[in-house]
């Protein structure tokens, strides 16, 4: 190899810079952790199993949206027979009253910006 004396140190420096985020996190002791989500105070049970809701809440909300707006079908019957109004601001935020600590914390961490709040109003104020 020609110029190995320059290329090899150059590659080492490049790899060091490219992997900087990884070893910086390791060195500073902060391991990658999912954000802590605030649990509602007034209820212990969501409209469906928590793991399912964590994974599929966007599909649930899309289905609720279509059924409520387009078919005027506003009542959701949970697997255990409890009945809920299909409403983001009424039902979801009725329990998860801290939108900032429930919705936003995770959405910010994942860098997603769902457009729900462009129209739907957080009863506690804020965007």
């Amino acid at each position: 190899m020609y110029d190995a004396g320059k290329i090899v140190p150059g590659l080492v420096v490049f790899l060091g810079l490219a992997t900087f985020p990884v070893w910086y996190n390791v060195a500073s002791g902060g391991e990658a952790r999912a954000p802590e989500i605030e649990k509602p105070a007034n209820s212990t049970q969501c409209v469906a199993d928590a793991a399912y809701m964590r994974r599929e809440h966007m599909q649930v909300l899309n289905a609720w949206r279509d059924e409520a707006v387009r078919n005027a079908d506003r009542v959701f019957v949970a697997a255990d027979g409890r009945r809920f109004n299909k409403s983001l601001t009424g039902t979801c935020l009725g329990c998860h009253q801290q939108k900032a600590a429930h919705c936003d914390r995770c959405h910010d961490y994942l860098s997603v910006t769902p457009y729900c709040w462009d129209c739907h109003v957080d009863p506690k104020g804020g965007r």
Partner: protein
Amino acid sequence: MAFGRRRFFEISGLAALGAAGARVVQLSAQDHPGGPEGSPLTGRRWAMLVDVGKCLGQQGCDKCIQACHRAHNVPSLGNPKDEVKWIWKEPYGEALPEERHPYLPERLAEGRVLVFCNHCDNPPCTRVCPTQATWKRESDGVVMMDWHRCIGCRYCIAACPYGSRSFNWRDPRPFIAQQDPLFPTRTRGVVEKCNFCEERLAKGLLPACVEACPERALVFGDLEDAGSEARHLLETRTALRRKPGLGTQPQVYYLV
């Protein structure tokens, strides 16, 4: 013996169990937030009747407009070019142009009547919508809007012969004095109009304007229900509709 002591205790025990069970079911149906509210008002052909005489008697009154615009987060942009409106007042001769003539009594010629979306039986706006963001609900005739789907092409605005639809040229949020969290706002680039308070009917409430009118000049009812007050008024009074010659079959009636 056909009905002994044993049988009596069996039956009374079962009855007590049943009563307790019903109470438990009733309680568990209530003990979580977000349960369904009120039983919905259902009709097969909703219509609005405006008593023109009563409404004209209170020219300065805009309680219905305020109630509607508050309930639906309608912005006041303070600029007729950008204006968003669900109910508003038009001069009599413009609201009902077929009724205009040079000898109109002053009360009518100078009066302004309430207008809103006519929730036509044959709505031209829904036919032109490319995304089916607006459609006539077949169950009760309400011309619905799905703001999630509206792409802001404004074909419906061009198609509506009554000017009942408004476009959000700007972000409406800064122009809403008090946001009601129970109803969404809209975003820039979305069309909106009166929805016959479809969200209130679902909770068993009459439209906000009807409830707000101190003169009871607005009557909301199901025209397919022969016993309704609306049907009774149509049978006993003369009713006009806006631009009936267009064949849109508007369902807002003006009682004169």
